[in-house]
């Protein structure tokens, strides 16, 4: 894990450089669209208390100065399939965001939605010789977590200390300077497919950008869509994206679980295209304009012109009732939600004190989804729109932008990760210690 440590530290340094320069881009590479926000950090003293603007959940120190969206290309299931096409899409979106912002951006923080995420909960425990938790002890207990076998070609995306326990007192968020004899910690580690991650890194490098961080899209959309109380009391965020459906579970303001289903809105579009024998574009239009999940009697009478440009008059002039469309969409959405339910069951979501479920992402805009989800997943279901951040244009406030906005929030307030703590001294390479020892012996 030393390479990972060094790599993530390098990204943290890059992020610090970007914050000093004041401009950083946030890139959400999804399956159906790529969004880019250019953030400007202009210090915490932009507003005063007398202006009537409070800390605004810590997001008053940056603002969005450029936004751009483009259709994603070469992506499938949240992973890069055709690298050249994805690179072109990233170039397009970054160039248009730079044009809107009017500044050059060199640092980018990206999120990855697919790549088969896997969550692990690790636990570690150390004895405190000093009887008190020092600065180095936190890093030591994090390093003491026993690491399971992640499997071949897996990369650690997040490694966040979630909970500290000191002599049986659990639930501490900051154990420093507290006295005790045994310090234990729980760490949440999210791993993803290494090849997908390196593809993403390579793609961004080819666009002449420096990668200043990578985050999981389900984590980022949870940050944006869940309000503070939900993060504190326990909630699950379900991000219905184009190619994947991300699930993240939060409690005590920490992510404790994340996963993704490889089903998404594209699949619904494909079902409509196959079922009604229309082109993909027509199916997408039907889904967004007329789609729904709860059929009523009125929907039988509401006829939808299919349209199309096949050139065959009879084919292009067909019409279907809305109930037919709902009949195609509903089973697929039910299947997606079933998978989500399985994941939540595997995560032990039923044992959480508050089983709030927040649906976000572009797919959450299907009418009737909240009723269906309430029937399938639990009663506390709401559709979540992302938080408002300063300078965001109105057309980027839709639920489909929640992972981009969450990434912006994460950039402004990064979560402590394992690599943010100084590595314990015994992890330094032995060679340099030996060299230092030799230097001392020769000179004193």
């Amino acid at each position: 894990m030393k390479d990972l440590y060094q790599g993530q530290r390098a990204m943290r340094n890059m992020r610090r450089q970007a914050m000093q320069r004041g401009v950083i881009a946030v890139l959400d590479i999804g399956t159906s669209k790529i969004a880019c926000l250019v953030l400007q950090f202009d210090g915490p003293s932009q507003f005063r208390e007398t202006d009537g603007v409070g800390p605004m959940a810590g997001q008053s120190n940056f603002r969005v100065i450029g936004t751009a969206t483009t259709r994603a290309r070469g992506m499938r299931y949240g992973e890069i399939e055709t690298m050249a096409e994805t690179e072109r899409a990233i170039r397009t979106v970054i160039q248009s965001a730079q044009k809107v912002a009017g500044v050059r951006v060199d640092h980018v923080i990206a999120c990855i939605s697919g790549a088969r995420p896997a969550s692990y909960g690790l636990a570690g425990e150390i004895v405190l010789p000093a009887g008190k938790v020092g600065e180095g002890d936190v890093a030591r207990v994090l390093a003491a977590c026993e690491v399971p076998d992640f499997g071949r070609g897996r990369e650690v995306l997040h490694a966040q200390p979630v909970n500290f326990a000191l002599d049986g007192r659990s639930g501490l968020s900051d154990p420093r300077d507290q006295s005790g004899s045994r310090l234990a910690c729980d760490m949440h580690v999210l791993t993803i497919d290494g090849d997908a991650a390196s593809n993403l890194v390579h793609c961004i490098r080819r666009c002449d950008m420096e990668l200043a961080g990578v985050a999981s899209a389900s984590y980022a959309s949870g940050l944006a869509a869940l309000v503070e109380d939900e993060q504190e009391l326990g909630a699950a965020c379900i991000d219905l994206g184009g190619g994947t459906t991300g699930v993240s579970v939060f409690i005590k303001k920490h992510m404790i679980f994340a996963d993704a289903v490889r089903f998404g809105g594209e699949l619904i579009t494909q079902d409509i295209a196959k079922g009604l024998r229309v082109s993909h574009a027509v199916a997408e239009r039907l889904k967004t304009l007329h789609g729904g999940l709860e059929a009523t009697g009125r929907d039988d009478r509401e006829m939808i012109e299919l349209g199309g440009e096949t050139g065959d008059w009879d084919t292009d002039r067909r019409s279907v009732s809305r109930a037919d469309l709902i009949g195609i969409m509903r089973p697929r959405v039910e299947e997606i939600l079933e998978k989500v339910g399985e994941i939540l069951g595997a995560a032990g979501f039923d044992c959480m004190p508050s089983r709030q479920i927040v649906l976000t992402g572009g797919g959450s805009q299907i009418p009737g989804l909240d009723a269906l989800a309430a029937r399938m997943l639990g009663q506390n279901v709401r559709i979540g729109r992302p938080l408002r951040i300063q300078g965001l244009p109105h057309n980027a406030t839709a639920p489909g932008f929640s992972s981009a906005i969450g990434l912006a929030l994460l950039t402004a307030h990064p979560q402590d990760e394992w690599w943010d703590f100084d590595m314990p001294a015994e992890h330094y390479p032995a060679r340099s210690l030996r060299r230092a020892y030799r230097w001392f012996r020769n000179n004193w």
Partner: protein
Amino acid sequence: MQGLNPFHRGQGPGGRPAPVRPAPARPAPVAPRTPRKDPAPSRLAYRLNRMMLRPLVRRLVHVGLPAFLAALVAGIWLSDDTRRANLTGGIDAIVDRIQHRDEFMVRMMTIEGASPAVDKGLRAMLPVDLPASSFDIDLEKLRERVLKLDAVEAVDLRIKPGGVLSAVVTERVPALLWRHARGIELLDKTGHRVASVTGREVRGDLPIVAGEGADRAAAEALALIDAAGPILPRLRGLERMGERRWDVVLDRGQRIKLPEDKALQALERAIALDRALHMLDRDLSVVDLRQEARPVVRLGLEAQNAIRRARGQPELGADGLPLPPDAAAGATAGKAAKTARKSG
């Protein structure tokens, strides 16, 4: 074979022609529109775009490059001598044409308040021949040059509408004659030179002063002469001594030495003494008033000799030394008479 082709049943060998059926109106076939390719900048365009977003590069391209190109084109165009000459010639011609319009021409010069000599000098000073453009006449410089003439105190130069260069001259009024080592000059009341004269007789009406630095104290000299009322007929002139104080020179070789300051009061005191005691009618050669508290009088030679004779001492000669006792009487009388004549 009969019956195999049912369509020809019951028809003649020629057959009936197929009826003409109008084709139904159909929409013209639409060429399938190729879906627009997703636009994306090429790598080169992307890199150029990002380069242009650097502030330095952007400023260089937006400001530096056009300026450089303009300078380059102008430089290449001007590198040819003929073109440069044409350009400067053209500009000069335009400037010349505008400056020599009728409205800007000066045809006449009028001079007011100048004596003929000054008038002649002023006309000679005009740098151009009339008629000339008013742009060629630098009034400020001309005024400075005119003011260098000693006889001119002030001059008001202006170009009036109608092409008239008008000069209103105020001349200096001579108030004193100043005799110095280099000749005789006329001074005005501030001591400024007005003109040189050949002799005293040219302006007999003016008082005369002498000595180095007399021109700088001309105002004081005029005040002294004004105050000299009763002794004015006897006044020959004032002499500046050591560039710091005045001597009043009267006829018969008499001199009143005035102090450096309060000279006017000292002179008035001497006049008062004269009026009361007829001091200046007596045989005095010098009245020294330089020390206010102790006026000193030097007797003339006659008076000294009279005193010496009465005391039985040897008489003094004209050089102030005692005469040898044998050559005394006759010579003394002759010399005294001669001295008196000289000082008169």
